[in-house]
């Protein structure tokens, strides 16, 4: 019962509704679908307290390794939970506030398995997949790279 895994690393946007349809299509064995979507926020989490406006984000990635890292994370999830389908999309390039960055969708016969796997994939993606965010200045110039948060590394300990 190997899970069907589909991973995309892409510039173009995606439609969570269409991804849901893809996870469900012909899949009546799995009664549970969990999804997570990450969007560009309108303030920087690094600027604690002071809501620094973020106009545009630029995402750099390591071509080849990004796809294989996401696939490996999906395989680890599939080995741990009884999943039917796993779909991961991660964008790169320039993104504006509100834009979708990442999609993780999992299906299972068990709701907790689908939700746990979705959370597990996001946690490992955050600390193990080669993507780097930079906040571009409002004048379009290169801004600062987003600093990794120790809370993201800590999040792996629960798995």
């Amino acid at each position: 019962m190997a899970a069907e895994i589909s991973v995309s690393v892409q510039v173009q946007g995606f439609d969570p509704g269409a991804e849901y349809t893809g996870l469900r299509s012909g899949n009546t064995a799995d009664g549970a679908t969990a999804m997570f979507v990450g969007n560009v926020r309108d303030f920087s989490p690094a600027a604690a307290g002071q809501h620094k406006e973020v106009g545009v984000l630029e995402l750099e990635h390591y071509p080849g390794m990004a796809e294989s890292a996401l696939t490996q994370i999906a395989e680890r999830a599939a080995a741990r939970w009884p999943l039917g389908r796993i779909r991961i999309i991660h964008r790169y390039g320039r993104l504006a506030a509100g834009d979708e960055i990442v999609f993780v969708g999992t299906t299972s016969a068990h709701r907790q398995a689908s939700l746990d796997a979705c959370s597990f994939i996001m946690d490992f993606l955050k600390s193990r997949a080669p993507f780097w965010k930079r906040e571009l200045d409002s004048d379009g110039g290169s801004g600062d790279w987003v600093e990794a948060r120790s809370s993201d590394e800590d999040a792996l300990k629960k798995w």
Partner: protein
Amino acid sequence: MIKVLFFAGLRERLACDSLELAGEGVETLDGVRHKLGQQSAEWAAALADERLQMALNQELACADAAVKDGDEVAFFPPVTGG
């Protein structure tokens, strides 16, 4: 030759996307790092950052991972995707 890639802030600091390194005398990822650091004090300092992550043939790897001719090595800051 060993192909070496740099990403994000490290790529900018070194002003280098990638380079080819002769494999002689280099046995581990840490060996690659040391050899690259000999280019200049700036390179040595940039590569000494303990938080840097390393990949060997597109997989995250530890400093003592064995490196051989033809391998692809990468150095980069902690990832911040998602």
